């Protein structure tokens, strides 16, 4: 995911060049509200470049153990996501390739991010860590669509699928799939907390992640 975020950052620099139109913009021309759309694109890209790596950091055990740092980075990421990333993404979604069905996919993803971000922040303020974790898993899952969707686009192109169809598939599959995986992970964790308590559940989760990594290392 971190590698994907780095690729996206590297390929997004072109959006800030004033003298050149990037291919993503060219294929959208002519735009109804070109100035608004271009400003939204730059805000969206800039906020994603900042927040996506922060979200990856926030999901690491190392940062979760440092509560104060986790809280402050979470506040920064949450504010930028809610007030810059999601609103600018909503503006962009109305001019999405593929028409209303694709627009709906982007809007759903944005709505999930906003909804679970608010829920997650409220849960954290109430010290309900299980609910906070579930909500933030959903936020991270939808943020990860940026990577999985592009990877899928690349794969479907290699398979020879028409780009118009591939664009729809590469959006809806990651949006729904990520939501399902987040819910599945949150559910299994909740069951673990119920059965063993929060501390033991965290320990078991660490082992659950560590075991396959150790196997690969052998």
């Amino acid at each position, binding site marked *: 995911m971190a590698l*994907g975020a780095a*690729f*996206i950052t*590297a*390929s997004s620099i072109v959006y800030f060049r004033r*003298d*050149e*139109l*990037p*291919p*993503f913009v*060219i*294929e959208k*021309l*002519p735009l109804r509200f070109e100035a608004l759309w271009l400003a939204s694109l730059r805000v969206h890209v800039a906020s994603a470049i900042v927040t996506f790596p922060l979200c990856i950091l926030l999901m690491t055990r190392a940062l979760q153990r440092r509560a104060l740092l986790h809280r402050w980075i979470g506040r920064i990421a949450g504010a930028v996501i809610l007030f810059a990333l999601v609103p600018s993404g909503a503006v962009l979604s109305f001019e999405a*390739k593929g028409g209303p069905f694709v627009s709906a996919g982007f809007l759903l993803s944005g709505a999930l991010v906003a909804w679970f971000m608010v829920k997650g922040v409220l849960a954290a303020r109430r010290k309900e860590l299980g609910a906070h974790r579930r909500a933030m898993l959903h936020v991270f899952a939808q943020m990860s669509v940026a990577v999985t*969707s*592009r*990877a899928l*686009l*690349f794969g479907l*192109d290699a*398979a*020879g*699928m*028409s*780009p118009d169809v591939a*664009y729809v598939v590469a959006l809806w599959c990651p949006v729904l799939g990520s939501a399902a995986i987040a819910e599945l992970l949150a559910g299994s964790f909740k069951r673990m907390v119920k059965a063993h308590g929060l501390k033991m559940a965290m320990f078991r989760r660490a082992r659950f992640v560590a075991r396959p990594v150790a196997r690969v290392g052998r």
Partner: protein
Amino acid sequence: MLGLLLVPSLALAADSLPAAVQHRVEEALLKPLAEKEKDRSRFSRARLPPRERRVRVPSATTIRDASDHEYVAFAVDVRFGDQWQENDIVGCAYPQTGALFVKLGDEYRPADVLLGKNADPAPVACVPGKPRS
């Protein structure tokens, strides 16, 4: 843009107009486009470059636009998998100047726009003028 607008194409003076237009589009648009796409990141939401492009000139006859200049329409087809998609790019070429324009939405812009240059719509380009009485 100047490159496409001001440098007249000798090829367009050739006998076979469709072949000359095809050559002009390939040299001035498709080759630079392919070169640009080589350096482009594949990890983007922008459409990935097609496997292949081909130019078609549907009609050999020239048409006069509103400012009384002659032009010839062309189309570019693309192939992604095994299937060709027709009219991926639609545009027109001006045989006298070698200028190329492409259609984006309902308007025509200098073909350089596809190479990433800012180019405003050209209102009279590629639009047939009123027939003379």
